[in-house]
């Protein structure tokens, strides 16, 4: 798979459509972690993240024929992941997974700083799950994934203006919750 990492997502999708299985593996390798973090931030349990990520990629590759490239592959993948998380949330009757094992602190040369960062992140996550879904997803795509509003609106099926409003509302609400 030499050189695959330098290819764009669109080029990898085209290669996969032509039968290049390594291109699919490269797309998974490229977006797997980000999608997992996004789903975790959206309230998925750590134990569910891998299944959700796998399901999102499976659905994405199986439906690549319907992907016209209007949205980026990443945005399209995150939209699938977002819908999966929404379905899971409904099946769980609105339960949000905040298990105690999620409060993990990794080894660090700065354990106090790491613990502080983890506490901030955990408070953020608890705040996020209290936001309306679109506010939460826009915030995560903007602040966690670094997407611009054009990409966000294509991923979530909204408009750039609406995405901006959702982001501002999310920030305001999170600040209130965390102040």
């Amino acid at each position, binding site marked *: 798979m030499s050189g695959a990492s330098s290819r764009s997502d669109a080029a990898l999708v085209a290669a996969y459509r032509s039968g290049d*299985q390594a291109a699919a593996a490269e797309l998974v390798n490229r977006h797997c972690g980000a999608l997992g973090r996004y789903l975790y931030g959206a309230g998925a349990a750590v134990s569910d993240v891998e299944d959700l990520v796998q399901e999102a990629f499976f659905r994405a590759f199986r439906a690549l024929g319907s992907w016209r490239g209007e949205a980026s592959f990443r945005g399209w993948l995150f939209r699938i992941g977002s819908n999966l998380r929404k379905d899971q949330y409904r099946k769980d009757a609105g339960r949000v997974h905040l298990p105690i094992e999620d409060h993990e602190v*990794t080894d660090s040369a700065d354990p106090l700083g790491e613990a502080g960062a983890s506490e901030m992140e955990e408070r953020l996550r608890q705040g996020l799950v209290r936001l309306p879904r679109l506010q939460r997803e826009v915030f995560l795509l903007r602040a966690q994934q670094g997407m611009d509003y054009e990409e966000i609106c294509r991923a979530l099926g909204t408009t750039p203006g609406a995405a901006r409003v959702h982001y501002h509302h999310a920030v305001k609400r999170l600040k209130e919750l965390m102040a």
Partner: protein
Amino acid sequence: MNTSHIDPDRLADTALGTAALSDAESAHVAECAECRLERELVAAAGRLGVAQVARLSPTRVADAVRHRLATEPGPPVPRARATWLVGLAAAAALALAVWYGSTRVSAPAPMGSAPVELSVLHELDGLGEPELEAVLESIPLAAGAVFHPELAPLDELNVNDLERLLRSMEE
């Protein structure tokens, strides 16, 4: 403290590292707890889940996806496409029926009877030609499926069809 806060998008860009705070903005953030919190929120979002998904293996995910793509059946044909196929099949069937009917004008049969012709003809196998003609004359054409001998080439019509055609022209 300056009450004019930094725009949330500007703060996000600087927290994400895609832009840098100016000196004035840095001074504001240093004094403004609200803007500082907002910037920390975005920074925390950037770290959110990093440790939790560290065990996620892209290779394992890719292998599982590849296996499922190879073994699990594809999605059902979308309804719109299925409807289109049904329409196409119906059009093809209609065209076949019309074509079949046009090739059978010398032995007129109600339109649409072609698919059941075999079972009907088996019951008529034992009848002679005059009896068959009598039966044919006695069968009313199916509702909405009127046979129009005038639409068939004249050289393909038998005597009875020609007589019916002439009668229809006299009426």
